[in-house]
């Protein structure tokens, strides 16, 4: 199994959730994060004082998926999260050794 983690733009969450649900991904976990990437460094001015915007609000989605669904999932996320502008985010793929469903004790892909 893989843990697919995507850092995306805030307002794309709904699209991505729908795209994943559409291809049958049953679960995911979402957390608000702050991102620092290429989309950095623009100067802003507030009340006459300049500052550099360093961290931008982003959303991180984590979805554990069976190995054979990986490509499909990546495509779904890419398509739904892309706006074409810098800061669209990244997807990180971690190896996952095991999963346990707490309620039933099921393990592995059965637990997804």
């Amino acid at each position, binding site marked *: 199994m893989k843990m697919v983690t995507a850092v995306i733009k805030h307002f794309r969450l709904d699209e991505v959730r729908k795209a994943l649900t559409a291809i049958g991904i049953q679960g995911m976990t979402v957390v608000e994060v702050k991102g620092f990437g290429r989309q950095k460094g623009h100067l802003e001015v507030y009340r*006459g*004082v300049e500052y*550099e915007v360093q961290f931008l609000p982003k959303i991180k989605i984590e979805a554990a998926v069976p190995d054979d669904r990986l490509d499909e999932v990546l495509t779904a996320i890419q398509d739904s999260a892309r706006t074409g502008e810098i800061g669209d985010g990244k997807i990180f793929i971690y190896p996952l050794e095991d999963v346990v469903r707490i309620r039933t004790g099921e393990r592995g892909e059965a637990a997804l």
Partner: protein
Amino acid sequence: MKEKKGRSLPTALALSLLLTPTGAVAQEAVVADSGDTAWMIMASALVLFMTIPGLSLFYAGLVRKKNVLSIFVQCFAITCMMTILWVLYGYSIAFDTTGMAEGVFNARSLFGGLGMAFLSGVDVNSLSGTIPETVFLIFQMTFAIITPALMVGAFAERMKFSAVMIFAALWFTFSYLPICHMAWAGSGALFHNWGVLDFAGGTVVHINAGIAALIACILVGKRSGHGSTAMLPHNVPFTLIGTGMLWVGWFGFNAGSELAADGTAGMAMLVTQISTAMGALSWMAVEWLRSGKPTAVGIATGAVAGLVAITPASGTAGPMGALLIGSLSGTFCYFTATSMKRALGYDDSLDVFGVHGVGGIVGALMTGLCAASFMGGAGISAASVGGQVWAQLKSVMVTIAWSGIVSLVSLKLIDAAIGLRATEDEEVQGLDLSHHDEAGYRL
């Protein structure tokens, strides 16, 4: 015996327009008027409400989350300390008129004596005009509370709490009290002798505090990270709630300065409302044009700019004057708080100088013009407008110089004695935790 203190009109104006009725009232007014008293109790409550929680909220919303409590503590502690100092000696230095005489300049033109220290001579039956003297002195106390509290915004997020308190005490004693005396102690007081119009505190409150704020934010130094890190408001709704409270409370400030519930109070309220609306709309308009979007903090700050500028004029301007004063103040303060501050590079965290200093100066000068009959004002003739504006200008210069010097000396002394600033670490951690051992929120 006690005369109606505080808001005497300049001699010329008083003689031509108001002396007879005022004199008449003053003589009859051996008894209190329950309507005037009712209004002045409420006006005092309104002005206190402006500081706690109004101003506290306005400022607290604008700082970063880690300093929210430091703003509140400073505002509350200043409120408490000023209350006690006012009772001990403040009221006396501001309003003791012993040794003063119409048109005479002497030491008593600058500050009153200590004859009423510890409120000696004030009891349940003392009157001040048509209201109990206790009510008059509380009303004035609330002005003495809010003025030093205004400065808090300039050195927010970095000044040491103990230094803030000592500075507030020194500045109150050596700048607030004298300027208050000069403007409002009546016959013989400096600004009174000059015929200056300052109905509710353009010089006493706003310019006075605005200049001190500017000096203080320069001497204390910029916040660490100024110019590179974002120091954005952490809770804009708080600032807007505070704005609403300031706005409503300001009716106590301006209309209350009439010390009676009458037509002048009504007109003061009306011009206050108009100027505030215009201040907010003009800031909004300029911002909309210049940066494409009208911000919430902008409309709030514009409203305060309008409130500040109408303050000295509120007893003498008419609706037309108020439209003018509000628009000018919103526009001027916008440019001070943005372009000018940027050009000069000082770190007036919450634009105390930009709004109170500049708005106060705009208002004080325009008061001279807007008192003219042709502006719909209370009635100086077109011919005397020049002289009036000149008198206004003199009072502005005196206030700037006086408050500037007192601030500079006080801050230098405090710096030498205990230091003005929180340490770098304390500042990074935030004053809430480092100075007050508390976090603002656990959300």
